[in-house]
């Protein structure tokens, strides 16, 4: 009956002395929506990177639709679509060109390429802007384009790493409705991370609360509330992770963005 599509057992990832993910184990069933909820620096993105072949675990084993992302990379990569936490579009290309590039990389047959790109761009309300360069887009428009792009090859698993950051409530609702529809109608498994409790509660069947690289608990929102004897998911979350504010070092990417903002496009030389 149970049909596991994502599994992690005893997964640890260390960067030097720092342990980003510490002995994490979980399973996601086919067709399920699982939310990873956790403070900044809890290990959410690192977990996603290990599942999506971008990082190799220091120890432990992950599996994606029967493939090991650390070793059978191509097979694993064919199974998923991903919206990264930070932008991953080519600013110098148009929305259409970004979509086409993705379609080629994922060998979407050319006869369905055109209709599917149109359908998705219409869905995210960017069809009118298809020939505009992405660098002219607002943050929300870029996000919508990335979401459309991640769905282009009809993945079995969709990873959404804080996909709604910077989106207005309208777009956010629109996005989650669509994700739920995809999940219902196409049976796509969704693995998402978010900071927003109400999103996790509304969308996800099960929620994993992760902190300091460890999964504190995993279960439905009802179960989490019962377990912590709290009334709301937010209280449950705080009961499990404490009130301390987390610090996260500025990555070199942030520094670079500042440089670019300062120097404009000339910084590219």
């Amino acid at each position: 009956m149970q049909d596991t599509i994502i599994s992690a057992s005893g997964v640890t990832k260390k960067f030097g002395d720092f342990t980003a993910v510490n002995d994490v184990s979980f399973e996601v069933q086919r067709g399920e929506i699982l939310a990873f909820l956790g403070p900044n620096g809890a290990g959410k993105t690192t977990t996603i990177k290990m599942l999506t072949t971008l990082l190799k675990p220091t120890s432990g084993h992950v599996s994606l639709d029967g493939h090991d992302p650390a070793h059978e990379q191509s097979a694993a990569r064919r199974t998923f679509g991903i919206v990264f936490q930070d932008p991953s579009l080519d600013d110098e290309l148009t929305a259409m060109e970004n979509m086409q590039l993705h379609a080629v990389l994922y060998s979407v047959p050319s006869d369905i390429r055109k209709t599917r790109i149109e359908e998705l761009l219409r869905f995210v309300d960017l069809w009118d802007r298809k020939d505009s360069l992405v660098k002219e887009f607002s943050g929300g428009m870029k996000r919508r384009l990335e979401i459309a792009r991640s769905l282009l090859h009809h993945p079995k698993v969709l990873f959404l790493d804080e996909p709604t950051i910077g989106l207005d409530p309208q777009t956010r609702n629109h996005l989650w409705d669509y994700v739920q529809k995809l999940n219902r109608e196409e049976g796509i498994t969704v693995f998402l991370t978010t900071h927003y409790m109400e999103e996790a509660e509304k969308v996800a069947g099960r929620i994993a609360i992760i902190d300091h690289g460890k999964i504190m608990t995993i279960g439905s929102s009802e179960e989490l509330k019962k377990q912590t004897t709290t009334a709301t998911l937010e209280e449950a979350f705080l009961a499990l992770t404490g009130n301390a504010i987390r610090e996260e070092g500025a990555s070199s990417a942030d520094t670079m963005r500042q440089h670019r903002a300062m120097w404009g496009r000339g910084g590219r030389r």
Partner: protein
Amino acid sequence: MATIYILWLRQLKRYSRSKSRMIGSLGQPLLFLLALGYGFGPIFEKAGQGNYVQFIAPGVIAMSILFTAVFSGIEIIWDRQFGFLKETLVAPVSRTAIMLGRTLGGATVALFQGCIIFVITIIAGFRPETWAAIPMAFVFMALIALLFTALGTAIACVLEDMQGFPIIMNFLVMPLFFLSGALFPLKDLPGPIAIITRLDPLSYGVDGLHGALTGTLQFSYPVDIAVLGIISMVLLAIGSWLFSRIQV
């Protein structure tokens, strides 16, 4: 194959849309051509070496290709910083194909930039020895473009951000240029510098260009082509290995 093509096309589109970059990278070769070409001209002539603009033009063409090529290769760092690299890294295609597409795209851009400079040198008074040797000159321009884009790509794979960029410029790209025979003849150089210039791969590219455009060869076509070709292949292999190991 489709992967290589689409990433090649991407490099070309990015280049054609970046007018400031196109114009900006003309400045330096132009300065060398005019300031050195005409400034040192009289001395060069007195030393019995002939017309300096004639001598320096192939070197300036090589220089523009060298700089554009290394920059194109190093563009991977920008993609890493601004996120697009991840999109290609999670795609179900071989990383070698991604790396090849980018490198060929960058090399095409560098070759094109070299052609623009070629035209400019002719406007500035440079005259190739024989127009029939132009195809040979293109072979060398393409080889220089390929070799140094592959070098830039390989370097970019091990750099996290642009912090190391000035080091690359000052300790690699500039020496490659100044020690290549682009500015002075390699003939009759004193011992150590003669050895160093022979270790510089660009020397063989500049030599080939000199041979094709001005009819004076220090080495020989087969040696020049073999050295450039072999080093390009080695750098492509190293780059592709490094690229396949990138984790973000």
